């Protein structure tokens, strides 16, 4: 089962360059280089657009995502329902717009959570090194091999029974959000550790240490700014793999609580309905372009933060 994670979240320290130059010039240089990369820039606009759609969903969507009209079930796109209707006669256009809300929040918040937790864990391992590092990494090896489906079900059950939120939308999200975070942080911990290990050996850190700077000061002043760029790059890769992983969860029946829907849920409902291509086409396209945008932006950022790229 863990292979799901292995293939779904395929990240590695070396995707991300080590940015060694210091100071603000790094950021302005990166921004300049990013602007030159047209594909990445278009992607950035697209992602901002999708985020706006997600936030403004209640005002943009022509209908509610849950209003049913059985008499108009499974209609092909027409003037009333621009992208057709599903088997309960709900408007697909509105459901895709609301789906953006769920998919994006699953993607973004899970990535941030995994990053905070996995990052802290990885940084600790990388910074302390020695036996702490190797035992922390063995723990990760172990977690990586435990069937993630078992973890997913367990975490989902625990968080669903806790009833943390009153808001039904948040309630529907928590289970899946926690489940994804629990399996997601492991790979991020590995990545951050690799980064910290690399930066730790850099000359300026050695220098700072020789000058008697305290551990926290070194981490705060030298290491953190230097791995921030790579971390942003990681986020742009982690978000789409979370969105995709959510669709896999729908496939195996551990998805979102209805009547809410994400793009993964919509795609999973749609792919069997061969006679109604609009059920898979539009959610599929939404998924596809968002994935593409995040990945292109990630590639662009990666290049932009790479100091060796200066003269290219």
């Amino acid at each position, binding site marked *: *089962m*863990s292979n*799901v994670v292995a293939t779904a979240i395929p990240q590695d320290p070396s995707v991300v360059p080590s940015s060694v130059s210091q100071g603000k010039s790094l950021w302005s240089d990166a921004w300049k280089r990013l602007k030159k990369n047209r*594909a990445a820039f278009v992607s950035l606009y697209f992602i901002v657009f999708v985020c706006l759609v997600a936030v403004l969903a209640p005002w943009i969507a022509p209908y509610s995502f849950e209003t049913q009209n059985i008499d108009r079930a499974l209609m092909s796109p027409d003037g009333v329902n621009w992208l057709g209707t599903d088997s309960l006669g709900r408007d697909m256009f509105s459901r895709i717009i609301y789906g953006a809300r769920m998919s994006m929040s699953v993607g973004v918040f899970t990535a941030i959570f995994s990053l905070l937790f996995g990052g802290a864990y990885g940084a600790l391992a990388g910074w302390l090194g020695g036996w702490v590092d190797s035992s922390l990494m063995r723990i990760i090896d172990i977690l990586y091999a435990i*069937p993630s489906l078992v973890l997913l079900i*367990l975490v989902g059950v625990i968080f669903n029974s806790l009833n943390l939120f009153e808001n039904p939308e948040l309630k529907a999200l928590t289970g899946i959000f926690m489940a994804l975070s629990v399996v997601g942080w492991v790979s991020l911990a590995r990545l951050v550790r690799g980064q910290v290990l690399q930066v730790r050996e850099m000359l300026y850190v050695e220098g700072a240490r020789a000058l008697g700077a305290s551990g926290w000061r070194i981490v705060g002043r030298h290491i953190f700014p230097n791995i921030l760029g790579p971390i942003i790059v990681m986020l742009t890769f982690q978000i789409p793999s979370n969105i995709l992983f959510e669709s896999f969860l729908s496939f195996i029946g551990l998805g979102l609580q209805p009547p809410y829907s994400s793009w993964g849920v919509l795609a999973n409902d749609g*792919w069997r309905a061969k006679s109604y291509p609009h059920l898979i086409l539009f959610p599929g396209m939404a998924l596809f372009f968002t994935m*593409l945008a995040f990945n292109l932006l990630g590639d662009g950022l990666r290049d932009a933060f*790479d100091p060796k790229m200066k003269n290219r």
Partner: protein
Amino acid sequence: MIGMVLGWGLVALGLIGIILDLGGEFLLGGIPPEFWWVFALWGLSAAGFAVVRGQMFVFVMKRLLEAGFVIFVIATLTFLLLRFLPGGPFDAEKALPPDIKANIEAKYGLNKPIAEQYLSYLGSLARGDLGESYKYIGRPVANIISETLPISFQLGIYSLLLAFFIGIPLGVFAASKHNSLLDNGLMIFAISGVALPSFIVGPLLVMVFSFGVPFSAMQGLLPPALWESPIYYILPVLTLGLRPAAIIARMTRSSMLDVIQADFVRTAKAKGVAEQVVLYKHVLKNSLIPVLTISGPLVAGVLSGSFIIEIVFGIPGMGKHLVQSVSNRDYPLILGMTLVFSAMLVIANLIVDLLYTVVDPRIKLG
């Protein structure tokens, strides 16, 4: 010299195996089972030779011991976690009367204290016995693995070959034309491989290549499912291979870009070595390390089977047991699968580490 013979002989044997597998029905009537024994023995001696020559014996032993411990902890934790999972193996839509359920649980020793169950599981594990499945009554877990894993392996190997064959050249091309239209185009193509879940990609390919939508000339070109002969392999291999291909392509591209800037490449260029030679001889070879790093988990993941691909294409592999054993709460089967998966992960990572020294002799292990 012996190392060369052993190493390239292994590659040659592997190629012969693939040829026999793909075209064997005309050539020799399939692969004789003895072939794999020869192959395995050859591989073991090649690996052994490499380890001894590279003076990595201690390193390998240490890693294997460590791996043994990790696998033991994995088995223990999984065993415990399973008992916390709500729902038992014998809960069904039609609830069994308590007496009957007690009989069944007694038969599998589930009525004993957990500590005792755990010890007896470890005991049988030490004897090499993975136990019997609860769902597939009377069928040993070892049999399920030995019957389904080879098929997942077959699917996985072809997908990986495809991934490396497509991924590496794609990455090289893109990197050599950095930030050009070609680079962007190739990368968009590669990303398309990861942009959709395989439960959409698979049926999409089936629609085009089996049912001829929208190109009716393609109708009936490839069978939509099953796993009978090479023609049946194409669509699932393509579906499974696209994802790692995309990952490898992007990895190759980015690490090539890193290496191109390195001093030794500039030196080579300055010395007037032809651009192509520099690109392939120096840059590519040095860019392979990150690609290798990601290959470890990727290989283990792909080889142990993909649930979605096996479901969508009706392939009798291990991937679906990986998921369904959990849905069925089939404890011995879940544990067996987990052990196999973690062993594969460990071995794949070890081989990757050993390969580092092949690609870059400067790397010292230990």
